[in-house]
């Protein structure tokens, strides 16, 4: 069973946007897609240690700011080289204007 962690105020994230959230020794990326749905993944690109939150969201895709590799942040699937590995995704819920992600200890 995971632990729900409060992350950011929903007002801080626009449609088709991504925001960085650090918790303990881990960094996460919280996304909003073009339909206004929310998702979360690990914060670093699986290709190289670069914050995905500095990248570009297009629909359900996040493009890494360093090498333009792409991931589907709804599934964690790699979509374009140089990203070849999947990224860990986390369940997200919206409560009282705050976004929560479920992490496992």
């Amino acid at each position, binding site marked *: 069973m995971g632990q729900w962690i409060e992350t950011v105020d929903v007002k801080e994230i626009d449609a088709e946007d991504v925001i960085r959230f650090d918790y303990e020794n881990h960094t996460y990326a919280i996304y909003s897609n073009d339909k206004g749905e929310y998702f979360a993944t690990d914060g670093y690109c699986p290709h190289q240690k670069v914050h995905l939150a500095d990248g570009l969201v297009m629909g359900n895709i996040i493009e890494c700011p360093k*090498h*333009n590799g792409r991931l589907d942040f709804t599934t964690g699937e790699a979509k374009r080289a140089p990203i070849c590995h999947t990224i860990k995704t986390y369940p997200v819920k919206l409560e009282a204007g705050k976004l929560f992600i479920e992490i496992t200890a």
Partner: protein
Amino acid sequence: MATNMERRDYSLLGPLNKEAIEKGIAEAEWYTSPIDRKRMKELMKRKNGRAIRDTIIWFATLVILAYIAFLSWGTWWAIPAFAIYGGVYALTGNSRWHEAGHGTMFKTPWMNEVVYQIASFMNLFPATPWRWSHVRHHSDTYIVGRDPEIHAPRPPVWRVLLGELIHFYGGIADLKRIFLHAFGKMDKAEMDYIPASECKKVYWEARVWIVIFLAIIAACLYTGSILPAMFIGLPTFFGFYAVMLIAWTQHLGLNEDVLDHRLNTRTVYMNPIIRFLYCNMNYHIEHHMFPMVPYHALPALHEEMKHDCPKPNSSIFAALKEVFSALHKQRKDPTYTILRPLPITARPYMYGPSPYGTVIQQGGDKKTTEGIGIYGTMDRDS
């Protein structure tokens, strides 16, 4: 500590690769200029319409220049006509290879891929290996032992540098690799940056290219003329002067082994025609710092960050003059490095743990940084 005449080993298989990892300058975090996040999102936006228009103009230009060259065949006018056709073929092939390779040319991924494959062939750059080579160039820009796209070692070798005006060394090396790949083998150095999972794709791309080479040779034999190869294939060589005269301005004479693109990359002002042919890659600091920004938004990005960057060179000629003056000095002192002053509005340079070279400070004083352990930022006036 390096002596003045010590040659650095630029091979990816040499000791400096491991040394760069140990020093923490491989796949490291690089300096970025502060840009408002909302503004950056606007600048990063991809546009199909602009790229489709520019691609139509590109192909139309090549067809017109090819037709003029065809009409001139058999006369002395063929020399300037093919020099211009070849220059435009090679330069636009190179810039479209680059932009489509980043996936920033079009909004639609398959359009980028189609242009990438065509432009890779125009450069004779094996498509998948060069995609990964360029990924490494962005991870480790001018980190010796790591970056496979360093244009000249220190000290420079004039024979190799000038030979590249007809793509003599790079072109032959790539042709050798294409045949190697076609037989299901990889170059050892390539395996430092290409994942094993990509090898099959590399082999099949090479085999397709060999079929195209054979078709060009067959066309030459059928027509009894070299003319078909003068339009496809050979322009990569006789037109490569246009690529190198501009590409030499990108990094040469600047720092090695630093973590700030303002220290190892050059932005040069160029006229709108050259910028169209070159996909605005004259804004090279901007491109390296923010590779997600498409070519059409680079002039706007330049306006956003010029307060944080050294003054751009005023022209290709001015940049080449600076480059060749530095290369000439590096023949005697390989550590010689140009340091450009930052404007008062800029943040200090971020050298990283082990910058290499002689920093030419304001006022003309020299200070050798190799081995003295400068860490982190260093103020331009220090």
